[in-house]
């Protein structure tokens, strides 16, 4: 009776979930106290977007981290981090459309169509929607792993669009967005190298037989 299998690392996801609420709570508290500065809507908008980007990149870092270290815990946190990224992206979009543009949907639509930086940001969000909707184990079973996996490749263009959204948004100082672009590039590189290593021995054994 005492030998029931314990769910591994039961503290991991609850810890991440609670910790990841801190930025939203902090922003809300600073908004109430006036500590967001003279232009609180712009500040909240930028901060929510930054957290969404960081979480999205963090969710993409899980697999390379496992590849490099052999740890398995990052894979247990990957789905939650991805969902948190989507949550912050949704908050970011809500503040933009609701507070910044005052729910003037025509102005929002005009922005999305006319401004390339808003277009790519919106594209990143749209690509994340099906990923969030199919994030459950049941979805994997329903779709079949191969199809599910193919759909979830969308996370790469989504992250790329999110970084480009940041790069195109800044007026002149590209240092900060380029930090995230570099991290994203490094994470993709790890995956490419790992994929090549996996395929090379396979090619070597299958080659003579073919």
């Amino acid at each position, binding site marked *: 009776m*005492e030998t029931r299998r*314990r769910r591994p*690392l*039961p*503290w*991991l996801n*609850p*810890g*991440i*979930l*609670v*910790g*990841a*609420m*801190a*930025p939203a709570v*902090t*922003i809300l508290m*600073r908004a109430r106290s*006036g*500590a*967001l*500065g*003279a*232009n*609180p*809507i*712009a*500040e909240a908008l*930028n*901060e929510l977007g*930054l*957290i969404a980007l*960081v*979480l999205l990149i963090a969710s993409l870092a899980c697999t390379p981290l496992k590849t490099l270290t052999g740890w398995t815990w990052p894979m247990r946190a990957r789905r939650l981090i991805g969902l948190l990224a989507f949550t912050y992206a949704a908050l970011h979009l809500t503040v933009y459309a609701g*507070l*910044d*543009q*005052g729910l003037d949907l025509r*102005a929002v639509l*005009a*922005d999305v169509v*006319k*401004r*390339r*930086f808003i277009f790519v940001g919106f594209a990143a969000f749209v690509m994340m929607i099906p990923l969030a909707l199919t994030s459950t184990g049941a979805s994997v079973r329903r779709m079949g792993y191969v199809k599910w996996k193919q759909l979830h490749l969308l996370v790469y263009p989504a992250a790329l669009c999110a970084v480009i959204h940041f790069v*195109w*948004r800044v*007026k*002149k*100082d590209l240092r900060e967005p380029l930090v995230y672009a570099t991290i994203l590039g490094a994470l993709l590189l790890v995956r490419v190298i790992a994929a090549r290593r996996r395929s090379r021995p396979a090619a070597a054994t299958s080659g003579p037989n073919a």
Partner: protein
Amino acid sequence: MGYRRQADMADQGSNRPKDEVTPEALFRRRREFLKDSLLFTATSVGVGLGLTSLLGGGRSEPPPSETVADAEASRLDVARRGALGTTEAQTPYGDVTTYNNFYEFGVDKDEPARRARAFRTRPWTVTIDGEVAQPQIVDVDQLRRWFPLEERVYRMRCVEAWSMVIPWVGFPLADLLKRVEPTARARYVALTTLLDPQQMPEQKGRVLDWPYVEGLRLDEAMHPLTLIALGLYGRVLPRQNGAPLRLVVPWKYDFKVIKSIVHIRLTADQPRTTWSAAAPAEYGFFANVNPAVDHPRWSQASERRIGELARRPTLPFNGYADQVAGLYAGMDLRRFF
């Protein structure tokens, strides 16, 4: 009492009843629970601190509280008030002095207020030369003696689609230019900010091509709305707002209104100005506020007045069309944005 204690002590002996011993499994579960709780706390605190450390400060700390003597010392003698100004609600002093674009002190808006605190604004001279009959080097305090100061409450519209209303204290640039007697060849005015990377930390980087240069056509510079400001809110100009002297041109986007000026040069040709050279498709030489011409990355049709929630429509020439539209008669304002 004594009896009970004796019984308690007896319990701790070897003949403690078996059912008071924590079963090993339960003991393990408790240890596990404790360990899990600690790891949960560590994870949530770590993730929370990590993510919140990415958030900006927003508002920089307010400047050290002024003594009465300081406030008195910084008060300017204003000879005239109310001319050519707006009666709209003024943006609070705290917002005007903590939300600044002054790239020499950092690209974030809260940085100038923090990083310009030790900026030396005296002694300070301004060189005026080029196409003038009376080139000279003037001390900034001399300017105060030459020209009576007046207060002008102007709208200020940033190219980033936010705006303020600021009570500036200064004198018309035209008064200064007349004094140095522009020659017949003078058609433009180029103004330059101090170049001093020791004091202006961002000048060590390459965000912009330093020093910052801005320019006006001579007729724009001579327009009665165009000011050299030495103060705001009746006080000496704060460092983060461009002390000791700056340009104010209320119908243009505010990247035109150069701060901490050391050089005013009159020229025959249009000067190369910093932002229009850095991104010519985004920032024109004229940079007149125009709701009909969008910035490539955002609409200029509306703006957020600092302190207000809803956006308000942006007015042509920032609401000064009556006074200045004539300067651009016959010009294609889409081309010369």
